């Protein structure tokens, strides 16, 4: 059996291309252009899914991307909207959240238990006894959720892009098409999007048995094709509106972030269901859904239909159905006066009985399929008069009782909306600059009016942007009768008259929620969860507002709406994530490290060698050996990730004195000085070395992670101080390496003519000279505690210098060393690392940096705070410590706590086993009264073991600094 109709003009399916697929294990065949729902409906499958809470059978409702109950699973694709997603060859579809498939779902028992599960039932049980809650939670977790993840699904990377235009038109129905044409003809660059696979909107399917609208669409398409400045993009969702006209356009492949200069929202309206008992039975559907089945997919929605309506659209639907062989049992019109237009005559002429002032009391299903509907008169108060019900046999019931504007983008743009009592819908009252609305979303329904309203919006948008537009006034005729009924809702003592299909909420739930005090719209939403399902209330919010308004005796406008958050329809994470860029920086020596087997570690945006792997050696051994090479011979480390700044100008010294704690004005060219930077609260935030190259030229370093922010803040300070200085961030322009070890001088001597003698180039001095033929800045530094030269060279010649040093050092056993060895070496010297031995609150005195803070200067950043804090004395002090003999397994680690009398008295910031010293040494914050030399304290190590440490002076190694200062 098949309900596929003979070819229908304008149908979206390609009958020449069959598509084989399965649903819940059974095989079916549809056509290219079908959706799973249309193909199944054509195959007379009517239970397409189950509802979330009661597991009731559900079929086609909207066919407009809010049929959440019929979401399906297709392999790794979960929560696939079967009402709109294209059907694909070989798709193996299953229904979601069922036990045994949509038709035989064993969880349908829950429908019978509905009485036990009132609104918010889960707040009222399962927590007593407390011990049982985890059991119930597991039960809930089995029942909850929709689609299923495939953990093997690949990481999909999509190519996001940016786009720019003058006018974006959202929605390619009659209003949107006219808007795009008007703006396009004025010369604007226009992008016209529509979430449907083809443009045309209601022109394609709300035909009223006539071909006129469809022919209008053909003409409009031709007109658009003549405008090269209009880009028409079907299958494209405008997913949200963000500040300053920033619109994500989502299609099957990607997200495009469009920046139009003006936006026209012509997204139309969502048809709204009527609320009556069993309004969810398969076969009960929105009139527009039946029309979509007819005209898009050439599927006969039913054999015999009852039409429930309250507007002209229902009459058109009746004519459309009749034109395709559907028998119409009757048109039940909620309105006392019926349809005022000529449509009512046309319906009568074809012999369809019309019952005015009638509602549907309930639908009746047998075996998951609609078989009849009971109709009865409705009173002026909207209540059904059940005295004389009429029952109509029918396998279809189409509802056309009203609309809700698709206004999410307008809300997000900041439009204010008002409830309009002539159309019984919310319409825009005030639109932000550059945002326009037309068509149904603007409360305009008659086709001629929609076209004119679109032209108006397109013209106004073009004019807003300064394009020449024809002087023309627009007058949109008011609607002859309201397109929406103010109360399409029928009470029933047995319930199951659904307001929200996503969440299985029936009318009574709203009354009960209000009774419990949740009687404003936001609270009602949160308590009942109305509108919180995947369709975001597209078919439920308006009726919920009407229900609440009636409960409170106010107008829907006074109830107001809930906030419309992005997205308009859900958007895949893959589209949002795009390619997933991961910015990183590499020093010019990166490939050299790779060649030497570097094991990389992250340091902010940089990668640095942690150590250089050697076959058959453990990390700890390697680090020890790398450190040993520096102590005994010579090592080379890339320190090019340090921030490097040039500072020029007559005020350069004065500037440095303001941003660092030390004094610099008196520095002689050719010398260097350690520098500490504080924030305004006196906290240590960075350190480095300042070198003076000439009277008006300094060169200084910052920490690796601090370079960007330090440079930025220095620029800001000078924007205020206006000192005569130029700051250049040369971090990437210079490479830097530290050649360190007793044989450093011997190695370097081979590559430079510079006099390296201690007299000519003493400790902490700076010299400029060629190294391996490359102009270099050399600094005698002592961070690792050996004779050391920090060599800064232009980045493009770094590899040459590195290679030359490695080669020159070969005979002396030169070894590249990584960050880990450097950490150990500096710890042996008691040098702190900002960020490891300090934290976000550390004052300089706490970190033992008093000596570097010159409060006799008139000003430096943080000075006043340091003075204030000093009045109270430090809260803690950083001290050096060593452990008495202890095995590596029980040694404390960094951030283990110092404990005194059962209270926290500090923490370890650095600790390492020093081969050189033959013991564990470290730095720790301790209470100020615990700093006495040789005094013991306890550290709580892993497993709670208390380990004794002793305060010792730093440096631990070469306390006099003889190795770094003088080695001849």
């Amino acid at each position, binding site marked *: 059996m098949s309900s596929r109709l003979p070819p229908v003009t304008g149908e979206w399916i390609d009958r020449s291309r069959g598509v084989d697929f399965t649903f819940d294990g059974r095989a079916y065949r549809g056509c290219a252009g079908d959706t799973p729902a249309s193909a199944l409906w054509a195959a007379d499958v009517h239970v397409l899914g189950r509802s979330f809470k009661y597991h009731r059978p559900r079929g086609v409702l909207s066919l407009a991307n809010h049929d959440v109950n019929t979401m399906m699973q297709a392999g790794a694709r979960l929560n696939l909207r079967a009402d709109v997603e294209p059907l694909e060859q070989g798709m193996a579809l299953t229904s979601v959240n069922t036990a045994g498939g949509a038709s035989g779902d064993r969880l349908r028992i829950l429908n019978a238990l509905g009485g036990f599960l009132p609104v918010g039932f889960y707040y009222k049980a399962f927590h007593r006894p407390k011990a049982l809650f985890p059991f119930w939670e597991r039960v809930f977790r089995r029942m909850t959720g929709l689609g299923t993840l495939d953990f093997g699904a690949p990481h999909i990377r999509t190519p996001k*892009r940016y786009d720019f235009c003058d006018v974006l038109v959202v929605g390619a129905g009659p209003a949107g098409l006219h808007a795009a044409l008007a703006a396009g003809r004025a010369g604007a660059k226009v992008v016209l999007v529509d979430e449907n696979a083809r443009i045309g909107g209601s022109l394609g399917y709300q035909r009223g048995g006539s071909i006129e609208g469809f022919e209008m669409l053909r003409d409009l398409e031709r007109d658009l094709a003549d405008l090269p400045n209009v880009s028409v993009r079907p299958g494209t969702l405008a997913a949200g509106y963000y500040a300053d006209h920033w619109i994500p356009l989502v299609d099957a492949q990607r997200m495009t972030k469009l920046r139009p200069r003006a936006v026209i929202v012509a997204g139309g309206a969502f048809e709204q269901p009527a609320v009556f008992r069993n309004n969810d039975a398969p076969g009960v559907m929105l009139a527009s859904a039946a029309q979509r089945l007819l005209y898009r997919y050439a599927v006969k929605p039913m054999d015999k239909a009852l039409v429930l309506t309250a507007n002209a659209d229902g009459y058109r639907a009746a004519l459309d159905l009749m034109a395709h062989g559907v028998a119409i049992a009757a048109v039940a019109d909620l309105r006392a006066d019926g349809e005022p237009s000529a449509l009512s005559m046309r319906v009568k002429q074809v012999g369809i009985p019309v019952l005015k002032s009638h509602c549907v009391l309930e639908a009746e299903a047998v075996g998951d399929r609609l078989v009849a509907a009971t109709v009865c008169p409705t009173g002026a108060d909207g209540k059904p008069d059940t005295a004389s019900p009429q029952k109509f046999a029918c396998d279809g019931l189409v509802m056309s009782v009203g609309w809700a504007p698709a206004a999410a983008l307008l809300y997000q743009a900041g439009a204010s909306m008002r409830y309009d009592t002539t159309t019984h819908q919310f319409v825009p009252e005030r639109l932000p600059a550059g945002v326009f609305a037309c068509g149904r979303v603007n409360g305009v329904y008659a086709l001629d009016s929609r076209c004119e309203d679109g032209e108006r919006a397109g013209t106004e948008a073009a004019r807003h942007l300064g394009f020449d537009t024809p002087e023309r006034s627009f007058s949109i005729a008011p609607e002859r009768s309201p397109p929406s009924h103010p109360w399409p809702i029928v009470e029933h003592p047995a319930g199951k008259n659904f307001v929200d299909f996503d969440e299985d909420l029936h009318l009574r739930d709203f009354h009960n929620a209000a009774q419990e005090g949740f009687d404003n719209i936001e609270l009602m939403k949160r308590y009942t969860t109305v509108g919180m399902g995947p369709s975001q209330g597209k078919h439920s919010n308006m009726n919920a507002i009407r229900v609440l308004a009636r409960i409170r005796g106010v107008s829907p406008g006074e109830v107001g709406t809930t906030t419309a958050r992005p997205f308009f329809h859900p958007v895949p994470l893959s589209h949002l994530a795009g390619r997933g860029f991961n910015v990183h920086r590499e020093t010019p020596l990166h490939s050299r490290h790779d060649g030497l087997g570097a094991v990389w570690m992250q340091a902010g945006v940089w990668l640095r060698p942690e150590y250089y792997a050697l076959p058959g050696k453990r990390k700890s051994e390697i680090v020890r050996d790398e450190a040993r090479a520096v102590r005994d011979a010579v090592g080379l480390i890339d320190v090019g990730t340090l921030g490097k700044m040039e500072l020029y100008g007559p005020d350069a010294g004065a500037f440095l004195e303001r941003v660092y704690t030390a004094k610099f004005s008196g520095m002689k060219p050719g010398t260097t000085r350690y520098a500490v930077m504080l924030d305004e609260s006196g906290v240590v935030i960075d350190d480095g070395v300042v070198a003076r190259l000439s009277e008006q030229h300094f060169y200084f370093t910052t920490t690796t992670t601090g370079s960007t922010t330090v440079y930025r803040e220095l620029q800001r300070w000078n924007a205020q101080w206006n000192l005569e200085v130029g700051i250049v961030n040369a971090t990437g322009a210079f490479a830097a390496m530290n050649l360190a070890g007793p044989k450093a001088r011997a190695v370097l001597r081979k590559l430079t003519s510079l006099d390296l003698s201690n007299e000519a180039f003493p400790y902490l001095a700076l010299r400029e000279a060629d190294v391996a033929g490359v102009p270099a800045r050399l600094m005698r530094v002592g961070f690792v505690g050996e004779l050391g030269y920090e060599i800064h060279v232009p980045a493009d010649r770094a*590899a040459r210098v590195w290679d030359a040093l490695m080669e020159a050092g070969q005979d002396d056993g030169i070894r590249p060393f990584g960050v880990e060895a450097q950490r150990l070496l500096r710890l042996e010297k008691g040098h702190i690392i900002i960020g490891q031995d300090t934290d976000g609150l550390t004052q300089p005195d706490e970190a033992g940096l008093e000596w570097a803070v010159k409060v006799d200067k008139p000003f430096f950043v943080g000075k006043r705070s340091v003075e204030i804090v000093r009045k109270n004395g430090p809260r803690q002090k950083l001290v050096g410590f060593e452990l008495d003999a202890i095995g590596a397994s029980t040694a404390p680690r960094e951030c283990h706590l110092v404990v005194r009398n059962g209270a926290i008295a500090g923490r370890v910031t650095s600790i390492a086993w020093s081969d050189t010293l033959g013991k564990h040494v470290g730095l720790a914050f301790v209470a100020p009264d615990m700093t006495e030399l040789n005094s013991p304290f306890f550290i709580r190590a892993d497993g709670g073991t208390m380990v004794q440490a002793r305060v010792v002076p730093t440096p631990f190694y070469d306390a006099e600094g003889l190795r770094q200062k003088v080695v001849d």
Partner: protein
Amino acid sequence: MAAALRSSPLAHALATLHPEWIEVAGMPLASKLRDDRPDRSAKLGICDLSALPRIGLKGPGAADWLSARGVPVPDQPNTWSALEGGGAVARLARTEFLVEDGFSGKAVARLAPDLKPGSPGVYPVPRQDCALALTGELVNELLVQTCNVDFTAQTRDARVVTLTLMVGVSVTVLQQRLAGTDCWRLWCDGTSGPYLWETLTGIAAELGGGAVGFASAFPDAQLQNLQ
């Protein structure tokens, strides 16, 4: 080419593409890549021009310093003016300048020795850029996938310089006709170069383009002038 003094930030990335090198101002420049196809540059080519000589300077006296040496100084922020031989003087924001010679220019060689600390209000900016040229009909598609600036709104004649972020990296962008080829030029800090290169060539490959050698991107350039 082991003797070359300088190396491009992209030297390692290019080496994997089996280039033929030529030397420009002491830096190897990939003139041909093993997989160079003639249509790639026309579609979307990305070419490393880091070797071109360049200098940078900033400060209140920078414009006068350049003018005094006969350099055509763009008078508006974020515009550029042409140098003889295909080069460009780009005004970066207000008081900073990037001077780059084209394939046959000599300006940088002339200016560089003068550019030393000490001139009042003139501060040398060491330039160690990753410098690229993007060629071909799909350049804009690459730009819209990587940068939130509408480059189609810029005409070449307006000589606009754009300082912006591209896939998270600060870049300088301008449109130029270089050795007879229309291209977009792009400069970033050399240490961000490998990441930017990897990202851009990856996207370009999806679009049917990719890395190209200098000779492929600029077939009309007089190579001998470079050496």
